[in-house]
Structures are given as C-alpha cells and as structure tokens.
C-alpha cells in the first residue's frame, strides 16, 4: 500500500472507451501522484456502439490538450447540436432536443412562460423556433458558439457524433505515450487482502500478477471486480426501462449535407438511432425482447435503412440498472461495470466522464477513506437517478397505443420523483432547479412539449407585459436567430474548413 508521498498504483481493468478515458484523464491530471497500468484483452472486445455524446466531451478533449480537429478526423466525427425524436409522443410528431436554451429570459422570467401565455391567448407558435440549436439543425448549418454570454451565438452548445471503436485506440496511443503502462491479458483470478478485503492484485493468464493500490473497474457488463469479486448488489430498473437488446447495422451515407444531429425514431418495440458520421450512418434498433422477437427487430432495422448496409447486423444484450454503489473498498467502477442506461439520450460516455472527474477530485491520498467513497457514491446516485427519470419520461409521456410495448410504458408506474416532476411541470411550466449534473431546464422543456405535455398555467409575472409588445419582441428574436443561422456555413463545409474532415482542409 502506498503511503502519502509515494505514487499510488492505479490499475485500470478494461480497454474499452471507459478504460482508456479513465487512464488518460488520470495520467493527465494526476501523473505526478499515481502510476496507471491498464489491463485489456483483445479476446474480449468492446461494446463500442456508443457513437453519441454530449457537450461535456468537448471539455474532456480540451482538458487532455487534444487537438479537436485531429480528434475528429481520427474518429470520423461530425458536430452534433441535439437529438431529433420522431414518433415518440404520437406517430408523425417530431421535435429536436437541443444543446441550448429556448429564447432569452425577460426580467428574469424564463422565455417559455411568455410563449405559453401568448399561445393561451390564441397565438399559434412553436417554442422550438426560438432555439438556435434547433434552427441550425433544421438548416444543417454549424459554427462553434460564441464565448460572449451576451451574444445570441452563445445560447447553444455542441457535442460529437463519432466512431467509438476508434476513440479508445486513439486515446490508447495518447495515454501510452504519456506513461500509461499497458498489459495484454485475461484476468483468471483476483487476489484479495485477507484482512481488509481490498483487492490486492489481478492474476492474468500466462502467470502475470499486477498489484495495485486502487482498481478502476472498466470491465463492462461483466463488472469483474465490483460485481463478481466484491459482490455489490444490482439494482434493476428494467421495469421502467424495458429495452434490453439492440441490433446495430451501419449503412452508407446518402448524398447531401450531413445532419448535425442524431435522430431517434420510436418503433413498435422500442426505438432506433440514426447517427450520421463522416463516412457512414450508424443505425441500431433498441428494443424490449419481451415485446418483440430478435428476428422481427432485425428485419425492421434492415427495412428501415436508407442505403446499403455496410456490415452484418450485430446484436447486443444489456439490462437497465446499476450497482448499488460504484466505489467499494479500493474498487471504483466506471462505465458499464457500474451501471447501464440505454443510449436514448447519449449518456453512456458522459457517465464515464463524470465518474472519472469525481474520482480525480476524490483521489485517495493513501488508503481509501470511506468518506471519500461515500461522497463519490452520493454524487453518482444523483446522476443516475436524474438521468433515469429523464429517460423514462420519453417513454411515459406518450399517447401511443399501437403496440404492447407502448401500452406498457404509457401505463406503467413511474418513480415518485418523476411523477412529481411531471405534475410540477403540468401546473405552471416549471422544472425543478439544480446546477450540478445533467439535463437542466431546457432539456426537460423540450421533451415535455415535444411529447405533448403542455402546462396548464405559467409564471404569473409573465402577465405583467403588454401582449402586443411581447409578440413583436418574440418575432424580432426569431428574426435575429434566422439571420444569424443564415450567415453560418453548412455543416460539411465547416467540417472541412476546421480540418475535422478526413478528406483534408479547405480554406
């Protein structure tokens, strides 16, 4: 065991996206305090369909000092301004959940209250046209946001749509060049300390033994250290999030400008993703195996492809839920080893990043302090619970009654915390406020309104302004948004200009 002052030995188990993100961030931020040793096995392979990210990944890329254009070239990445949801509330409906806000506050009152008041007074208006990210997506245009908070161009953010199977290897070459040691091998035994019960070492096939002070379990669904070795209990959420399989198949990019957004289309037994990368389109059908057969799901996704498939369909199995605690003794589980929430809102890589950030903030300075682990777990609980509720909302807020799957999710009991949030929204268009974590007010507004839950009332302060003046102010704002977007380059053009396109740079 390292004492304070010595370098802590960190062992990362697993060489997927989670493992290499953890190893990279640890060596970048704590390279003077710890050594990082990553164990991976080519035999096992990675899940690696996570192609969708949230804007937080930008800061991860930045904090490692990676060149964004190079990172995008290496992973065939495109820019992403949000997620379009089709057929969720009702067949034929669609909306785009933007990375950004709706309109601008007036007198400290959120914009959507004014919008709600005017629609109640008879105005026919769509809140989404006051979102920069929406209008940019509709026009397939892109440029990075402004850093000036007073600018309209600062009211959106972006993420990446990328090839996750290339992200891990890209980070691997970055991290190994900075001192992360890598060992290839399969774990055959986990050695525990007889007294403390801590993990002491991993034994690999071929007789290699790797000792450590702290073990980061990135072994995926197997959860080899946290789940299998330490026996941390599993909390199952599949009654709320019944999708447990996915069938993925890429297809060729169609001609035309690449969409700077991901599309999620509701299907009879779940939903399917469509993620436009530079070189292909990623597709997958996420479904509930108790509502639709594997064959039917595969047939449905193949039938839905817009162009020729580029590979055989690949099947994945999972289960929604999480380990009760993510940090137990000297094991910190990151990514799928700690829990799984389906990819509907692109949260998997975010959860990895969040866990790694917390681990760095609470990094042990000797033996693991129980209080640090408790603080890590407290934060993780909050993250998981909020994302879980937000995901369930997408299923539950629906009028669909065209399949057994939708009948189930429409009528199921939801967690009390979500029931209260929905009731709170319905009454006067309010969203419970927090600043830490994921999915703030604009995200909830997008899904509520996009899926047909219009609040009965609004902030009473919004009644103070004159209706006609308000209406013209709103029209002016929309005009400014349209003007700003009209001046932006098309997405493909910006990819080339920024050097992110694999084909090279144009000036």
């Amino acid at each position, binding site marked *: 065991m390292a004492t*304070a002052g010595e370098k*802590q030995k960190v062992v990362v188990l697993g060489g997927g996206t989670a493992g290499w993100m953890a190893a990279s961030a640890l060596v970048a*931020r*704590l*390279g*003077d*305090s*710890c050594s990082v040793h990553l164990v991976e096995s080519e035999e096992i392979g990675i899940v690696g369909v996570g192609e969708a990210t949230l804007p937080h990944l930008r800061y991860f890329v930045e*904090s490692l000092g990676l060149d964004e254009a190079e990172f995008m070239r290496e992973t065939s990445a495109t820019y992403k301004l949000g997620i379009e949801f089709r057929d969720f509330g009702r067949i034929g409906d669609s909306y785009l959940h933007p990375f950004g806000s709706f309109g601008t506050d007036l007198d*400290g009152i959120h914009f959507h209250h004014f919008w709600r*008041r005017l629609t*109640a007074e008879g105005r026919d208006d769509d809140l989404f046209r006051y979102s920069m990210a929406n209008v940019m997506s509709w026009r397939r245009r892109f440029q990075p946001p402004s850093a000036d908070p007073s600018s309209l161009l600062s009211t959106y953010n972006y993420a990446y749509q990328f090839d996750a199977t290339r992200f891990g290897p890209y980070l691997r070459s970055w991290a190994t060049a900075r001192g992360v040691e890598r060992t290839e091998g399969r774990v055959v035994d986990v050695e525990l300390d007889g007294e403390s019960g801590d993990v002491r070492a991993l034994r690999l096939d071929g007789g290699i033994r790797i000792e450590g002070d702290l073990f980061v379990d990135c072994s995926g669904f197997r959860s080899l250290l946290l789940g299998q070795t330490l026996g941390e209990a599993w909390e199952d959420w599949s009654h709320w999030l019944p999708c447990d399989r996915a069938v993925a198949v890429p297809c060729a990019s169609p001609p035309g400008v690449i969409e700077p957004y991901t599309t999620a289309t509701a299907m009879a037994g779940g939903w399917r993703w469509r993620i436009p990368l530079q070189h292909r389109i990623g597709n997958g059908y996420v479904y509930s195996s108790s509502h639709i057969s594997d064959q039917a799901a595969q047939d449905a996704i193949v039938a839905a492809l817009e162009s020729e498939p580029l590979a055989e369909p690949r099947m994945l199995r999972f289960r929604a839920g999480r380990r009760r605690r993510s940090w137990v003794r000297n094991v910190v589980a990151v990514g799928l080893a700690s829990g799984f929430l389906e990819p509907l809102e692109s949260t998997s890589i975010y959860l990895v990043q969040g866990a790694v950030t917390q681990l*760095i*903030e*609470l*990094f042990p*300075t*000797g033996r693991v*302090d129980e*209080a*640090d682990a408790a*603080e890590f777990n407290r934060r993780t609980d909050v993250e998981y619970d909020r994302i879980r509720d937000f995901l369930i909302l997408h299923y539950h807020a629906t009028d669909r009654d065209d399949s057994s799957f939708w009948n189930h999710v429409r009528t199921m009991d939801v967690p009390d915390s979500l029931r*209260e949030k929905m*009731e*709170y929204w319905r*009454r*006067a268009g*309010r969203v*419970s*406020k*927090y*600043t*830490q974590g994921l999915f703030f007010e604009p995200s909830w507004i997008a899904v509520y309104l996009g899926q047909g839950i219009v609040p*009965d*009332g*609004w*902030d*009473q*302060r919004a*009644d*103070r302004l004159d209706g006609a003046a308000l209406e013209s102010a709103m029209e002016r704002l929309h005009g400014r948004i349209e003007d700003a977007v009209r001046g932006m380059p098309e997405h493909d053009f910006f990819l080339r200009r920024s050097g992110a396109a694999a084909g090279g740079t144009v000036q």
Partner: protein
Amino acid sequence: MTNQSERAIRSILVLGGGIVALSAAAVFARALRGVRVELIETAPDRAALADRLAGTLPTVHRFHSAVGLDEGDLVRRGIATHRLGSRLDHWSADGEPWYHVFGDHGLPVGAVAFVDLWTRARREKRALPYHRYSAAAAMAEAGRFVHPSGDSQSRLSSFVYGLFLEMEGYRDRLRAAADAAGVIRRPGRLDGVDRREDGFVASLSLAGGETVEADLFVDASGPSAPLIRAVGAAFEDWSAWLPCDRVVLERRRNPGGPLPLDRVRAEANGWRWSAPLGGRSEEGRVFSSAFEKAGGAGDAVRIRPGRYLEPWTRNVLALGDAAAALDPLHACGLHLAHSAILRAVELLPGRDCHPVELAEYNRRTVEETMRVRDFQAIHYLRPGRGDGMWRALAERPLPDSLALTLQQFEARGRIPFFEEETFDKESWAQALIGLGLAPRRLNPLARAVDSDRAAAGMERLAAEIASLTGRIPSYRDYLVRMAALPAKPISSRPGA
C-alpha cells in the same frame, strides 16, 4: 380562457412590522399585475434580527433591482455604505486576525485550485496569511473601497460586496417603493387566525374586530411566527449547533467615520461586533446565557436559533425570523429573507398552494438555510479558542452536511458542492483556514504544479496586491468622491 385565471393568486396579505415585511410586499406588488397586496404593519419585534441588523450580503443588489432601489441613491442619502466583509479577531488558536470577504483569493494554475497551492506553501513555511492573496481582503484590511472593475484582467474585478443599511432611513425608502408599487399599507395588530376546514388560513382577525381575507398570507412577523404556527408547521431547534441565545444591540456615535467592513471579536462566552456606518456605528454583543449568567444582559434580546421544517405550509409563507432564526454571525438574516422573497415570487404557486409546487420552494429554501447554519456553526463547533463556552462546544457532533464539509476539507482541502450554497468555496476556505483548520494531506492534484514555481507566483501576487491598496482612496474620500456624504452627518439616535 385557460386554467391560468382560475389558478392565479389574486390577493396577498403580508403581516409584519419590519424590513422583511415591507420588502416582501413591495416585491410582490411590483412583480405581479392585478394582485392585491396588503401589508398589515404590526409593532416591530426586537428579536426579529433580520429586520434590525445593518449588514447584508451581496445578494442585496439583486433584491434592490427587483424592488426598484438604487445603490447610488441610497449611498448619497446616507442610508447605505459598502460592506466588503468582516475582520475576525480572537477566533483562531494563534490569535491571528482573519478576514472574510466576497472575492477570489489567488489564481488557479491550470486546473489546480489556489487553496491547494497555498496549503502546500504554508506547510513549506513560505506562505503569507491567506487574506494577503485577496484584493478585496487587502482593501478591507486597509479600510478602503472601490467598486469592482469591469476589466476581467484587473485584480480588482473578482470580488463583490454587500451593504450596511441605516434601517430607519432604509425603511422609509422601502415604504416609498411599496407605496409606488401599489401596496395597501396600514397599521394593525393580529388578534386571531381563522382556518378553513382543509387547514388553510381563511382570514385574520385584527384588533378592533376587523377581518381580512387573502389567497396567500405572508408571515413576516418575526420569531413569534403566529401564522406559520397556526397552520401546523413544526419548529426544529438548532441551539445545539448555534449556542448563543442572547443579543445586545445598540447604536453609538462613530467619530472614526464609515469603514467598508465590520469587526467581529470572539470572547469567552460569545462574541461582539462593530459595524461602522455613516454617522454612527452598530455595536452588538452575542452570548450564550448557559455560560454567561449575568453581565450587561439587562437589555439583551432572547433568540432561539432554529427553523420551521416547511417555511411555506398551505397558504402561509414564512419569511425572515418567522421562517428561520439564525445567529447574527456574518449578517445572514436579511440575506436569507431577500433570497426567499425572490424565490417565492419566482415560484409563486397557484391559489391552491399545491404541495408539489410548495415542495420545490421548500427544498431550495431549506437547503440554503441549512448551509448558512453550517457556515455559522463551524465557528462554534470547531473553534480556535479553548476557553469559556468554547471548550464545551468543541466536541459537539456536527450536522451531517457540515460533517461532510469538514471531512472533505480536512482530508484534502476540498469543499464539497451543495446546490443552494450562500457561501461559496472561497468563503468556506477563508473561514476554515481562519479558524485554524487545515487539510491533513495535500490534494494530490497540487503536485501537477511545481512547488518553487507556485511559491514564486504567490510572492509576486502578494506584492502586487499589497501595492494596490496604496493607490486606492480611503473609504471616506471615496464616498466624498461619489458625492455621497451628506453635508450634515446623520444624527445619532438611541438604539432602536
């Protein structure tokens, strides 16, 4: 028509005799159109500290903008002076004074926080006291003041400030603001509370036999809290964590003139403060009657620290000391009232005050109040002194949220995040360091910055900050320059 017209609150009745009641009535009336706001001005309660103490926190500006008061106008009228923070004497084991201001200390290097670099430098015995790395603290120490610079590169850009308020003059300004906003204001005395079958308040009976009705009742009547108690809210006693239960408050002549800070001195069984306003100063003494049986306690006001579990219960909203009675330390009373008023108008529920709507208000208000309590409580529960009452307090168990803060700070110098935090990480670090608490281990993140390089940077910064104050006018000159000091100083009056 939609449900909005059925849902909206049409009338609000505010009960109370002080600043908090006026503040609430004025904000509600200004923000809400077509709502009748009536204020029954009761006799002031001496124990309602939020109505009486002169100090405020930087949140005061947001409140002033909501109520239509202007800082420059208040300063020119001699009602407001600026408050950078406090100097605290005799609170630490080594007897060193420390400062609490609302501003940055030092500069982070990359992703490494300054407090981690300072902690390491102190271990290496090459750090000056923490406040020497803060421009705001340097100004406070020198008794000087300028407004923050708009240039983000300036050392003088990264701080904020509160105000000291002369309550008599301030009350007049608030009255004018309330009247202009259409508040119906009249004196009265509460005689009884009439409840509906569902437990809501239907009306109040006033002395003289009159009955007043409203959709929403605001209890701003101080710690007696007759309305919030009438709807069954339960009180949680905090005296185990905030042990002082007596306050003596008076006004004295202040020949030294105004200063932009107050001085807070610990003594055997409590502490004293002195806030030098314009023409006079506010002098306070706070102690625990369990330890100090006599001694100038004749004029003391009794306080009982604690809070109501749900400050908004049914159609009664409690504000100020009717919601939570805090310790006077760091002048939090009016801050909490301001914050609650602004939150209440933002989250105003429907007429039915549905529990799901009140829950969000209560959650945020309660968390904010509890973290203010924690900030005050750390001064008592992990004191630098070991004499008098302090010896008995040092081992008391902490509230959970404070225990977590202390554990994280002592383990690695980290201040954990809470959603509704009044005192940010900079404030917590000043207090914890000032009280003599120290991380047991260095934050491993600090190793990313070379120790010598960090120390050299700190030395340059401290020298630069020290030289700043020489170029800043004295506070009196600054006020004169603002054309703010009245020709005749405000006459001193006996303690309110």
